[in-house]
């Protein structure tokens, strides 16, 4: 579990983008199934880190995107949240991974008056 150090990297990125700590309402992030990041533990750690570093108690909004795969046998492109099922057209598990490693801080939101 390394979500604590990850949460600190996130507040560093956010602080840099908005010019230092300030209370936030929401933090929007995207996580792919091949990022190795657990949404649950990230939520827990981020709450602790955000509060202790002066970012208030923002809601962490996590968008879990699917991985994009392409079947090597029939060329169908498909989405998957895990990797147990094969191609929806032909069932093959021969495939290339096109995406799924995403882990980004997308944006932050706060009240106008809340500065």
């Amino acid at each position, binding site marked *: 579990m390394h979500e604590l150090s990850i949460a600190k990297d996130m507040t560093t*990125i956010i602080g840099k983008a*908005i010019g230092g700590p300030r209370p936030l309402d929401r933090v929007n992030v995207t996580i792919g199934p091949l990022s*190795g990041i657990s949404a649950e533990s990230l939520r827990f750690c981020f709450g602790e880190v955000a509060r202790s570093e002066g970012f208030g108690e923002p809601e962490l909004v996590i968008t879990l995107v699917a991985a994009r795969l392409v079947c090597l046998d029939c060329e169908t492109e498909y989405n998957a949240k895990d*990797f147990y099922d094969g191609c929806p057209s032909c069932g093959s598990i021969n495939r290339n991974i096109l995406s799924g490693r995403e882990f*980004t801080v*997308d944006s932050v*939101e706060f009240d*106008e008056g809340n500065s």
Partner: protein
Amino acid sequence: MKDPRRDNKVDIATRVMSRNDSFAARNHELLRSNDILTLNIISSPGAGKTSLLEAMAGFFGPGLAVIEGDVRTRRDAERVEKAGCKAYQIETGGSCHLDAEAVGKALEHFDLTDGELSILAIENVGNLICPSGYDLGEDMKVGLLSTPEGDDKVLKYPSLFSRIAVLVINKTDLLPMLDFDVDRAVRECRSLNPNVVVFLMSARTGEGVEEFCRFLKGQAELEE
């Protein structure tokens, strides 16, 4: 210019791993410029990473250097040194993975320019999840899966097994006692990673070790 503090939504669109990745790029550059092939060896605890490195030390001698990552103790570094190559231990002090910044500091303890060193192997902390997202500056990730762990682990840890260049299935000497299906593990690994190179190995009996070392030697020569 608009003041971001006045907007109530600020777009950031930044990869969280970008800081680590810039340290990794620096390490990679340094190692490449010295013609050193770098491996990031990842497995669960006890799969046989250090045993493999001991066997590799027998093959490469001082042409191999090792960085050991463990939560605590210098034990693994001492084992590898005893087997005949240089080793530096990083004690992560609780962290479940190595990061590129720590590896960069460890590199200062080696003479990379002496021309003797052709392979640097980094033994990551035993863990199938956390190390997978942290590039260290390696040329390739080597995933070790040992037969007692079960043949179903590949698809359970896709973030690792989709990123490895080499899969080593270790402890093949135990296969007669287990229901581990080698074909299944290989098939599922290829389903995440069609180009993965596979070696079957017993670090205990030495089976497969030489074949693996010859492969690395070939890769290191390509690097020069």
